[in-house]
């Protein structure tokens, strides 16, 4: 879905945000890059627990390489998913597990999505992405 150039572009866009408002607007823009899942793909099995907005995450693995598809009913969450998946798409599980995903999200000005509140399931998403 993303190559390293796109990853870099996403990183630069988010790091340039100087306020929550700018991050909000950037995430809205990024959200449009996420291909939506079909109704058949939005099933309970793929639902990430712990998110107040509904989030679905599908992991496929071929030749040890992981590919991800995801969706959410909330737009900002779709923007966050674009950012998160740009860090892990097309990598092996060993490579993914070596990435400190929470630190990466802090670097991207997304730390407020990592607080362990009821309204936040990003940590649950990260856990699912990096699970064996």
């Amino acid at each position, binding site marked *: 879905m993303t190559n390293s150039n796109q990853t870099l572009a996403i990183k630069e866009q988010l790091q340039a945000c100087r306020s929550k408002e700018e991050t909000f607007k950037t995430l809205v823009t990024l959200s449009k890059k996420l291909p939506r899942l079909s109704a058949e793909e939005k099933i309970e099995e793929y639902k990430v627990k712990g998110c107040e907005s509904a989030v679905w995450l599908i992991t496929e693995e071929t030749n040890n390489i992981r590919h991800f598809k995801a969706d959410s009913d*909330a737009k900002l969450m779709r923007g966050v998913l674009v950012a998160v998946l740009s860090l892990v798409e097309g990598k092996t599980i060993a490579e993914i597990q070596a990435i400190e995903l929470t630190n990466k999200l802090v670097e991207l000005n997304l730390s407020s999505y990592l607080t362990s509140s009821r309204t936040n399931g990003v940590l649950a998403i990260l856990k699912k992405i990096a699970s064996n």
Partner: protein
Amino acid sequence: MAFDPSSLRHLFPILSLQANDHPLIYLDNAATTQKPLLVLDAIQHYYRNNNANVHRGAHFLSNRATNHFEQARETIARFINAPEQSHVIWSKGTTEAINIVAFGLEHLLEKGDEILITSLEHHANLVPWQQLAFRTGARLRVLPLTSNGEWEDEFSQYFSHRTRIFAATQVSNAIGVSTPLQMMLNYAKQQGAFTLVDGAQAVAHYSVDVQALDCDFYVFSGHKMYGPTGIGALYGKNHALEVLIPYQTGGEMVRKVSYQATEFNILPYRLEAGTPNIEGAIGLAAACDFLCNQDRSALLKWEQSLASHVYSRLHRETNIEIYSPEKNTTLVSLSVPNIHILDLNAYLDSQGIGVRAGSHCAQPLMAQLGVVGTLRASFACYNTMEEADRFCNVLLEAIDLLLDDE
């Protein structure tokens, strides 16, 4: 003269904070209110001058602590017009108070008995009754109320001679509507049911008179009425409290203990096991003093005028659905089709505005309304008309930014 919130904003130091580079606008008062200096000072004063365990040591500080603690109980009793201070039981809050009653009445319930609640209840006034029904074989019934606080079908059919408990909220936390409480209580009493009123959303706004309501139990939390968290009260009529089996036992609630048996203490102590939340009680009494020193009807009018102002500005917008009533409420609960409430919430937050987005612990009600959740702006006496307008402006901006162009 109209009430001016600037006359008391300075009593709430937290309101001068900046949030995300904007002046904080706090509109999540139905979740918890901010605390006036009077409350903060009372708690600090207690620890600086009066701290000791209560009802125990016969020494200088213990006597002082006990006096202040029991004076706090008296203040709460006056606040809700309870006839005796021994009818006021301290609890952690509304949830614990309802659990004290739900467990305490269990021994009186039989299979086939009925517990009746309304469709506007917070989970706190639903789950304890549902679980009680599971344990006893009683049947949980739900009286359907519309979002206007009116009843849908023939009201009386929900009350029967099997109705043993009737529990209802005074004001819905999710949509702000007042229930037809007195009428429901009358029906319940005719059937000889125990009656419990959840006053969590009412006490900050309305003067409460438990004797006029004539309910068996009235419960509320301190933190939603300018008091501290972790403290609330269970009021009960004497005979109603007397039949409750204590759901917690231990120290403080006993009179005589041997290995063979325990004799429980008298009310209110019988239902207050363990060292109580002394600072909380004192802080809550200070919150009552704060409220009683205000012109409460002027405060209520002001809060309602903020909500109806927001209602009148937003209900004209074709893409906004409002679930709270137009008048006689202190909050506005809404959603925007095709935009997630969390997205709206995130933009409001980025502008320093704190509201609540979610199911408001009322998932069955949300299902009835056909939404996952709503965005709720709830007002307190310190909120200004400028804040109400800024909420509307920023919400409309958010809708512009989020409306789908995909």
